[in-house]
């Protein structure tokens, strides 16, 4: 009833519903003053951002700015050099392995390449987390798995092996596996990369539908501005080790900052250089001739 009343409101209703009904803080994930480096290369410097409960939050930015690294920090595949990564108010760096694995049961992660277990069928891939973490009878597992596969349109492919799937199908199976345990948080790592327009459209639709239907907090890492904007409630643009801009997709499109404008509109010229740092072109070519 409350959901129905909130539906017409501009604010995402899930956030209000959750906050009012369960008295939980709005911020499900929070990064506070995070520094992270790989060798001599600084990826993040003083990065702070929050991801609100129930939202679809997009993390965007040019290639190589650390979007996937950000997901790895949230799931503690990596630990920051400085600062805190809080999930539901808990600093993930302080968790023991058992606590971390309990937390990870609340996550669903869609990897860039699907990361399906190649020696298992589609059915067994989706059943894998359920078998590992529950003692449900096989008949019930079968129902759950077929339901999840039906949700991504691949119930008919249950007996296929991962090698028999196209890229888009593999991504959808991975999505079914990611939601198999009904997670609180879904992390998508470049879900639209390398897909044909039809598969991409299906995945975009699924991201929105799953988020709404299962009341999941979603974090979508992508540089596909157009498609992410269609599903995101809130966006962050990451560049130069920090947050370059944040806001709703509409706000970001209207953003006048040179970097954000270049990124959001895909302009070839701007502060983000197309060429990787290199010595002067003419000097390098002529120098080689002289040698």
């Amino acid at each position, binding site marked *: 009833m409350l959901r129905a009343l909130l539906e017409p409101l501009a604010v995402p209703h899930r956030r209000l519903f959750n906050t009012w009904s369960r008295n939980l803080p709005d911020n499900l994930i929070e990064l506070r003053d995070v520094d992270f480096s790989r060798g001599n290369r600084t990826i993040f410097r003083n990065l702070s951002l929050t991801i609100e409960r129930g939202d679809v939050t997009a993390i965007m930015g040019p290639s190589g700015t650390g979007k996937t690294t950000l997901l790895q920090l949230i799931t503690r595949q990596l630990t920051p050099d400085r600062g805190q990564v809080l999930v539901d108010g808990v600093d993930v760096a302080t968790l023991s392995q058992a606590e971390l*694995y309990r937390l990870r049961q609340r996550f669903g*992660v869609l*990897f860039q*390449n699907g990361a399906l*277990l190649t020696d298992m069928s589609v059915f067994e891939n989706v059943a894998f987390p359920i078998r590992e*973490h529950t003692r449900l009878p096989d008949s019930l597992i079968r129902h759950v798995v077929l339901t999840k596969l039906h949700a991504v349109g691949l119930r008919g492919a249950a007996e296929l092996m991962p090698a028999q799937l196209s890229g888009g199908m593999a991504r959808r199976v991975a999505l079914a596996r990611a939601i198999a*345990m009904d997670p609180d948080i879904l992390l998508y790592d470049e879900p639209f990369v390398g897909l044909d327009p039809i598969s991409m459209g299906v995945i975009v639709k699924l991201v929105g539908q799953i988020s709404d239907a299962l009341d999941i907090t979603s974090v979508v890492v992508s540089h596909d501005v157009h498609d992410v904007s269609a599903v995101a409630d809130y966006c962050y643009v990451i560049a130069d080790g920090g947050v370059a801009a944040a806001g709703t997709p509409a706000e970001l499109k209207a953003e006048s900052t040179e970097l954000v404008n270049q990124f959001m509109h895909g302009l070839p010229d701007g502060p983000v250089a197309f060429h990787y740092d290199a010595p002067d072109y003419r000097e390098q070519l002529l120098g080689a001739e002289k040698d």
Partner: protein
Amino acid sequence: MAVLRDVWTTFLGFLQVLGAMCMFFGRLVRYTPQVVFKRFSLVVYQVYNAGALSLVVIMISGLFVGGVLGLLAYSSLERFNAEDTTGIFAGLGLVKGIGPVFTALLFAGRAGTALTSEIGLMKATDQLSAMEMMAVDPMRYVAVPRFLGGVVAMPLLTAIFTSIGLLGSHLVAVEQFGVDVGSYWQQMQNIMDMDDVYEGITKSVVFGVVASLVAVWEGYNSAPTAAGVGRATTRTVVVTSIAVLFFNYMITAIYI
């Protein structure tokens, strides 16, 4: 001076890897009881994978190695009119040394490389990361069952290799050169005692641990690229071979 520095750096690197490998081995051992009780079917499958699927190469090799041993022993002993003792040399050689060593080397080439490349590819395609994100520890699900599979399979394969080797030696000495069948087997039984068998068993167990540890370690720590997996697979064969020959010498020295 620069050479000395390089040698020292290489030595320190070797110690680092050895230390990390020992810690990895410690984790494998620590998780073993849990895996045996909770994931017994995975262990059984890996025994089949490492053991049963290596049977053909082990049996064919055992037959030829035994045959060559019979040939060499007969041709040498014949000079002293002692060809009746061919069985002793074939038996002692196969049970105490050649059986376990050859089995371990063949295991490294067939099952060890398969384990390394399988785990390496799982790593390169994010399957291990996916397991971690599903709160399933890949050490318990992937590494320990494969390690135990190798440890269990090696003594069984060694026993089969040795038995087939003795048969090969018998075929050459008895069927081809006409050594008396009674003498062949009786001399072997008279000279060999249980210590010889224990030595063979000890070696096969130690080699099983070493070969499986190296294979799983290399796969688990391979660079997540095609070349990285290839290099790890090669290292598995090289490191296992050297380690097996080293431990073979050490165990032989202990038993003498």
